[in-house]
């Protein structure tokens, strides 16, 4: 598989954007929560689930997607949203609870809806799976060659919705790709305490569809596997189940005491960081031997600017008027 360098750089930029976004969010989240952590305080209150370390999954898959393809994310949605091209300003404003946000401040971090790029997500584990199946059914009914992607965690693969969604998709041969992020934990519960088999990819057999396990948190490996799945889906050959071994650097949510995992686990994981590895690859494979980092640095700059811009926009935006709470239960 040979990927044109501009595409590689785009993927790199998105990964860096995600990483910076999550790190910036982690800091913003702590504002107002020190010295005493109070979940309800600061400019970004509520639960906060960050995806630093999991960039390869989102980016490796979404690199194949077009605007009209649908993506359904989870309670940990930022990396998917960024990779799918959700408006970063509006998304950040939403997370800051501002009226300029995607949902005018009503949804917050777990409820990001951007119909322009067909992105949605949910705070309920596993719930997005059937919804992606429905999007795929819409595409099939209209003879469009769009695809739908449902992302979810390895913990979600034990929900009934997983079974029902995959069964329907396989039965109706729908253009949908199911992507499991195996980040080893569902909050505190390790995969070995929730799933009796080693990889959820093997569950594809229960539906007669292909199942692939990508055992390395590597964006190119994900890209390759996802490429085949997306091609199958667009070609009318039905769904694929992909599981990717990945790693979560932060706690389950910010404030998680993380009593359930070894203190040094994350440090060890970071030694093999997927962004660092991808950067090395880009340097080595650079066509510009005199300045192999030039285009890479440009991407990093772009990423930083986008993130800074988005947070600035969010901070400067206004809160909704309190009475707006009564609006939008229904559309007119």
């Amino acid at each position, binding site marked *: 598989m040979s990927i044109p360098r501009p595409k590689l750089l785009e993927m790199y930029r998105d990964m860096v954007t995600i990483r910076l976004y999550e790190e910036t969010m982690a800091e913003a989240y702590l504002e107002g929560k020190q010295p005493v952590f109070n979940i309800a305080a600061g400019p970004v209150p509520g639960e906060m689930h960050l995806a630093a370390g999991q960039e390869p999954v989102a980016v490796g898959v979404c690199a194949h997607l077009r605007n009209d393809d*649908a993506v*359904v994310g989870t309670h940990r949605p930022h990396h998917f949203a960024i990779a799918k091209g959700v408006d970063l300003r509006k998304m950040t404003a939403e997370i800051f609870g501002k009226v300029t*946000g*995607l*949902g*005018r*401040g*009503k*949804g917050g971090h777990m*409820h990001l*809806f951007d*119909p322009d790029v*067909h992105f*949605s997500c*949910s705070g*309920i584990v596993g*719930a997005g*799976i*059937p*919804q*992606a*199946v*429905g*999007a*795929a*059914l*819409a*595409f099939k*009914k209209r003879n469009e060659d769009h695809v*739908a992607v449902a992302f979810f965690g390895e913990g979600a693969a034990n929900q*009934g*919705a997983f*079974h*029902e*969604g995959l*069964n*329907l998709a396989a*039965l109706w041969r729908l253009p949908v790709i199911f992507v499991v992020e195996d980040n080893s934990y569902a909050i505190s519960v390790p995969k070995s305490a929730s799933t009796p088999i080693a990889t959820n990819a093997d569950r594809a057999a229960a539906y007669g569809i292909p199942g692939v396990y990508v055992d390395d948190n590597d964006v190119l490996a994900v890209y390759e596997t996802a490429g085949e799945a997306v091609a199958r889906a667009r070609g009318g050959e039905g769904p694929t189940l992909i599981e990717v071994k990945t790693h979560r650097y932060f706690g389950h949510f910010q404030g998680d005491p993380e009593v359930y995992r070894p203190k040094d686990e994350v440090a060890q994981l970071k030694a093999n960081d997927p962004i660092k590895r991808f950067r090395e690859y880009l340097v080595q494979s650079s066509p510009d031997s005199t300045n192999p980092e030039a285009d890479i640095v440009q991407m990093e700059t772009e990423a930083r600017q986008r993130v800074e811009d988005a947070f600035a926009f969010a901070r400067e935006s206004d809160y909704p008027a309190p009475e707006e709470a009564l*609006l*939008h*239960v*229904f*559309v*007119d």
Partner: protein
Amino acid sequence: MNTSRKLTMARAISEAIAQEIERDDRVFVMGEDVGIYGGIFSATAGLYEKFGPEQVMDTPISETGFIGAALGLAMEGMRPIVELMFVDFFGVCMDQIYNHIAKNIYFSGGNVRVPLVLMTATGGGYNDAGQHSQCLWGTFAHLPGLKVVIPSTPFDAKGLMISAIRDDNPVIYMFHKGLMGLGWMTLIKDTTGPVPEEPYTIPFGRADIKREGNDVTIISVSMGVYQSLEAAKELERAGISAEVIDLRTLVPLDRETIAESVKKTRRVLVVDEDYLSYGMTGEIAATVMELAFDYLDAPVKRLAVPDVPIPYSRPLEQFVLPSAPKIVEAVKELLYS
């Protein structure tokens, strides 16, 4: 509109769906046994023959799967009508219904549309026991984000279904098995009623005064409306003039019609085939008090299933369900004690 033609409620519903499928190719039906079987309660009878498996899709027994899929379909621009065979089964798929279908519009600040009709069968009276006889509209009306529509006549059924399909918001459409006019469930003698051939809509949030009266207001929905009308006839013989209000939709609720009626009659009975406590009767009673406290001559009276699961055996089930005689009795207590 010509209303000389009479249809059952089942035919009124399937006709509404057929006309909307013909008008708008984004409309289709899915659910268990909606295809060749025509729906267990015939709400989709004849549609498969007319439109085929693309517009009338049978599904596996995977309610979370296909109702969740209906949401994905609606958000991608389709207009699904999805049948949950019995409302009693909501527990296997409630997350999709109330955490997603009912809330995505709000979460998005009005940026997405969810044009979806969740059609479901309600009601008991034919000894189908506690997992197949419930009404549960109180449960759905309590949770924000769904319009709750409950037809009691074939005429209303057609107009409300067309309104539901054309609405860009999610609607739960709850028909009563005993009112569908099914040959094999002769609970109500005459369930056919006049239904115009052409499509028409009925706005949500407008209660219908099914009978005018002066001495007491009986408020109900669905089967309760029939029973109330029967009771009203009986009461008339006893010299009591009962007004019967069919709410038709619990969300939105027509407060004005209720208030006006109560100000006239000063006494209210609420009749409900759902469970008594923390449900429709409490809400209507509280609403009446809020709207017309100074007019009330007596506390609002409630007749509903007395907080027990629906029992199987005939004498037990009849004991807990509302009926015309019980309504008559309740009205008399309301007036004379």
